[in-house]
């Protein structure tokens, strides 16, 4: 199988999962206590509104028609209407998505940039102080609740030293990009952006940093003891190439699988990190809509979150296939 066909096949599988996600969200209206209308209508809705919702959901129709209409609307980009906010769900959800993506990306970059070198150092200097330090750090990292870590970061850096912002997203990464060409001073904008994003990114990224450090360390130890490493030493290959081109590459292959599986944890973590830092992303939208019983928005958010998960996993598999071309043939 060629690389292209592999990606195509994997994308089709992903599409199947997205269909499943959408179906599960559709099914949620039937596990709502009472009528599915309750899943859409505000608590104080007038009988007319309730009637309008019943028609919109097609509740007078057979189930398969309801489902068909629901899918059809989704395909047209219609995720329903939030009667509580008086807004289309699509606009709301996609308005919040960039903030979450920015936070999740920043956290992943912090996590990956720190963890892989740390894991490699820890494995290549086994039983030296840096190894013990990395082991303790990663043990603490996977055991610390991220929302608490966020609050502690606020306590230390924002309250005691007053160096970072503790809530909101006053400047986004788009502003930083614009300042490169626009009239705003670039470094000032960059610093302002960092002041907002640093603490949330650390709070969200720490768990992953710890997890990847652990996986990289144990994977490297495993790979470095293998025959091909000894053979590479015997043929005189420089240490750098043995470690990074040979051993690390093989270490990262299973690490990437685990990260794909743990992506849900990243998104879940983003929800709660956003709550701590009042970050205006999908997470805060989810919590708000549950607290206000705004089900259409919750459903829309769930679909977007589920779809993003699938999308990123397809991307991860593509990278995987690139790193280890043999998976294409499996």
């Amino acid at each position, binding site marked *: 199988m060629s690389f292209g066909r592999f990606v195509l096949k994997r994308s089709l599988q992903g599409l199947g999962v997205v269909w499943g996600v959408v179906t599960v969200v559709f099914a949620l209206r039937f596990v709502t206590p009472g009528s599915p209308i309750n899943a859409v209508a505000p608590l104080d809705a007038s009988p007319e509104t309730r009637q309008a919702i019943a028609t919109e959901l097609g509740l007078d129709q057979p189930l398969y028609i309801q489902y068909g209409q629901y899918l059809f609307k989704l395909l047209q980009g219609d995720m329903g209407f939030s009667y509580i906010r008086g807004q289309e769900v699509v606009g709301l959800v996609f308005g919040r998505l960039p903030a979450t993506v920015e936070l999740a990306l920043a956290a992943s970059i912090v996590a990956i940039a720190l963890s892989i070198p740390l894991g490699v150092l820890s494995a290549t200097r086994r039983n030296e102080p840096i190894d013990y330090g990395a082991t303790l750090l990663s043990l603490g990292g996977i055991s610390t609740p991220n929302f608490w870590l966020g609050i502690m970061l606020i306590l230390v850096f924002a309250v005691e030293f007053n160096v970072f912002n503790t809530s909101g997203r006053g400047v986004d990464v788009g502003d930083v990009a614009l300042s490169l060409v626009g009239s705003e001073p670039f470094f000032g904008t960059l610093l302002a952006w960092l002041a907002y994003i640093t603490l949330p990114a650390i709070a969200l990224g720490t768990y992953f940093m710890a997890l990847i450090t652990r996986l990289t360390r144990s994977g490297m130890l495993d790979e470095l003891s293998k025959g091909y490493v000894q053979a590479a*030493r*015997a*043929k*005189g290959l420089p240490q750098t190439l043995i470690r990074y*081109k*040979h051993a690390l590459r093989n270490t990262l292959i299973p690490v990437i699988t685990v990260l794909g599986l743990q992506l849900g944890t990243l998104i879940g973590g983003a929800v709660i990190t956003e709550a701590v830092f009042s970050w205006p992303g999908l997470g805060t939208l989810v919590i708000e809509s549950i607290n206000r019983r705004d089900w259409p928005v919750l459903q829309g958010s769930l679909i977007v979150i589920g779809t993003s998960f699938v999308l990123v996993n397809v991307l991860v598999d593509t990278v995987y296939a690139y790193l280890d071309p*043999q998976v294409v043939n499996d």
Partner: protein
Amino acid sequence: MSERLQAASGAGRGPDADDVLSVSNLSTRFFTEEGQINAVESVSFDIRDNEILGIVGESGSGKSVTSLSLIDLVESPGRITEGEVWYRSPDLADEFRSNDAVSVDGDHVDLRTVPPRVRRSLRGPSFSTIFQDPMSSFNPSITVGEQIAEAVEVQRRATANPRSTRSRTQGYGLGQYLLDGIIPGRGYTSEESMDRAIELLEQVGIPDPADRVDEYPGQFSGGMLQRAMIAQALAGEPDVLIADEPTTALDVTIQAQILNLLREVQEERGMSIILITHDLGVIAEMCDRVCVMYAGEIVERGTLNAVFDDPVHPYTEGLLGSIPDLEDPKPRLQPIAGNVPGLLDSEMDDRCYFADRCPNAMESCLEKPDEIVVDAATEHGAKCVLAERPYDPDEALPADYFGGDSE
């Protein structure tokens, strides 16, 4: 020639001019939780130009650790504790002649005394190794061609620079690696080294080498992969090729092909091969001289004919007795009773280590025997009292002396 034998058995004389490598009193120990393991015990031997030297022994006799010790690849908790490894290299000798920390004797340098980076720089261009299992000795996620090209590149970069700066320029740092990764068309290996890899694959008899360089080790058969490993070992144009059980993991029909290939490349390139194996058939087929190892020691050595036709040490006799003879299949195979000792320092008595399994053990075997010259002309020597005098039943140790059924 008897002096030579003396030298080789560690009497403290320097290496001879035609020794590519001369090892003297080499000891390697492993410091494990269970205790100290004497994997290689004061081993001495030399490898000359254009010869194939066989090292034979059961698994656990220390023959593989000996080969790893030569190229300084013994890993923690193992350590080379003693010994000299004289390597003939006029360049190195000149470079270090004025250095007091380094032992130099004529054209030979004691590699145990040179800085580690110099030892490292000799891997590939001076010593190459073929390992037992080709499947695990290639990185499964990098193409075979790329891995051979790496070995070519090691050699290319080594010879592109004068001897004195070689070890420095071999350093290939993380910054360099990342830079090469970012800039397209750059990398450790180059198109030239890949072309050379194709040539090498062709030389070792792999069909369609230009296509196969892009395949992964998993797409090769065991025999083809072992050929590829030989190609990789030849990439460095080494003086000494160490072949550690090169045919053990292969089918019998493939074994002969690989051995023929090894002999061919040895003859063509005029290099020396150290062939390590447990298979006496392979030794008989290939080697000029042979060393028999037992419990970390060389117990018998000499030319192939001397050792095979006229073994002195009962262990060698036992080994020879445990292979079937096609021409004379009548006598039953004689397996050696008991097992190889565990080599734990605390459990090793100061005696002939084979005495507990030896059918001819005598009272004098309770002292550690020195190597005794059997026949200087064939460089035949053995660490056994039987080299001096015949077996005397009156002095025999009682059968249950070592606790009967020794473990």
